[in-house]
């Protein structure tokens, strides 16, 4: 068995996960890579203490899966939704097992809320983090404001007032945003505002060791992405290097 085998669950073309695999390789660590659609086809066994996949004990996981991803490739079409729910329920429980360390290790509240940006905004705001102002529903807004759909969080032009009312749309000023990479509670690149740093620490405490935090220039949090993609090559390199080192050390320590 390799000195350290990290389980990576990510799409085959996930650049961030590929970068982590490279970083692990440089350290001499090995990776067992599973694509989300093939999870349902794996042999798994979970107890309160341990999680085995294909007969091997899982210790350290990079989990790059969203609740919307298909997880049941190869199953009959009318079985896929049920099977995917069963597989997700198994892995979400497994990642919370005390013997396993995972990035990200979502709690049930987060996972079953869909990991949506508004969910994280609400949770951070309730914990005292400053967030950008939004107006919801049929509240009048200036024409130059934007709408961030709950399902994507991607700002887009305002829908008409009637549509805003029936969807309780969240609208906000068109503010320039700063993207910060949060790795295990630290800001790797982006905003230096203390509010953003506190948000990163809170996310880490909630099991989100990897996130992108979009904030306004004053550091008020606008959007959280917990399956982030970083376009900036140097930030991506830093993130994957830090994650690779952490996962390698964790896996090695848990094995010994």
């Amino acid at each position, binding site marked *: 068995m390799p000195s350290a085998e990290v389980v990576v669950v990510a799409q085959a073309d996930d650049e961030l996960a590929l970068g982590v695999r490279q970083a692990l390789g440089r350290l001499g660590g090995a990776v067992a890579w599973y694509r989300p659609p093939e999870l*349902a*086809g794996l*042999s*798994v*066994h*979970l*107890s*309160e203490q341990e999680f085995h996949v294909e007969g091997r004990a899982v210790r350290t996981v990079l989990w790059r899966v969203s609740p919307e991803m298909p997880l*049941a490739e190869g*199953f009959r079409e009318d079985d896929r939704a*049920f*099977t995917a*729910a*069963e*597989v*997700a*329920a*198994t892995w*979400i*429980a*497994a990642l*919370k*097992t005390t013997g396993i360390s995972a990035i990200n290790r979502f*709690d*049930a*509240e987060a*996972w*079953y*809320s*869909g990991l*949506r940006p*508004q*969910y994280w905004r*609400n*949770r951070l705001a*309730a*914990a*005292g983090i400053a*967030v950008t*102002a*939004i*107006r*919801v*529903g*049929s*509240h009048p807004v200036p024409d130059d404001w934007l709408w961030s*759909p*709950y*399902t994507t969080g991607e700002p887009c032009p305002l829908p008409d007032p*009637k549509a*805003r*009312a*029936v*969807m*309780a*749309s*969240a609208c906000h000023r068109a503010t320039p945003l700063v993207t910060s990479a949060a790795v295990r509670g630290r800001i790797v690149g982006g905003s230096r505002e203390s509010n953003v740093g506190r948000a990163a620490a809170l996310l880490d*405490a*909630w099991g989100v060791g990897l996130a992108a935090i979009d904030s306004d220039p004053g550091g008020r949090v606008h959007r959280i992405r917990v399956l982030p993609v970083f376009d900036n090559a140097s930030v991506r390199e830093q993130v994957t290097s830090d994650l690779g080192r952490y996962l390698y050390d964790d896996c090695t320590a848990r094995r010994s």
Partner: protein
Amino acid sequence: MTIALLGDPDDLAIAYLSWLADRRGLEWLLLPEATLGVDWNFSFDEAPGHCELRSGSRSLALSALSGIFVRLSPEPPLPPGLALEGLAHTVFTHERREGLYHLLQSVPCPVVNRPSGGRANASKPLQMAELRAAGFTVPRWVVTNSLEMANAFAAGCPRGVIYKATSGLRSRVRLMDDDLRRRLDEGTSPTVLQEYIPGRDVRVHTVGDRAFATEMVSGGFESITRYRPAAVDRALANRCCDTARAEGLLLAGFDFRVTPDAEWYCLEMNPVPSFLPYEMCSGEPIGEAVLDLFSHGCHKPAPREGHHGYETRPPHALDQTAARS
């Protein structure tokens, strides 16, 4: 005092709460999900805290609501006159549902229940681990899709093994049988296997700090289930209330299997319990307790670690139903 009944107007619990509210002379608003933005709407501005609810000609501040009782349909209808299909239908209903979630997470009044509460119910192994950590006795379990591991687990359970869905999707609970063995052999999704516990079934509903225990008595195969009030140990009732509160649930339903030697095994905690059959047959005032919760209204926003629901008041003496034990 005005309460809101939000979601599916055909839901029996919503109809029942509105009837109880009428009997008390309480004002209530029905807020059907399907007619959001048509017959009623809400708006809020997070910056100045302007939050308003409008229903017909009526307008009130969201902060004036004493409580919201929620029952959402798994297949919510579109607004009258709107025709959408496929992806557009899916996206629209998701957006609208998320908008309602946003509202329910933001209002300061008690909500039965906020959508963030009790989510672990959708992952049975996760919930069982959490229930054990909360101090409940939970039957031994594994989740597996390996026939070899399933047989090994069953060999260690002399009283037998049941199997059920791993997620929150409805499934029949059955004793381990050749059908499961065949499916495991052919390859299937992970399944919860749990040690079979013989005994009687007791549901404990918690409403804030109050607990109501009901025993389900089955008269045999295909006969009607009867419900009757049951006694529950005060410490166990308190644990149920504390656990529900920690999970952000003002109303919860705990399912127990009680062995002949009075050992209480907790099987699950339901965040959207169908309390009506229990109340109708046992006479326990669960719906009234929900209205009491809204009337007393001492729930202040208080974020806590790991959850952004709202704290309820600290536990005090249980009501007479729980105290009967």
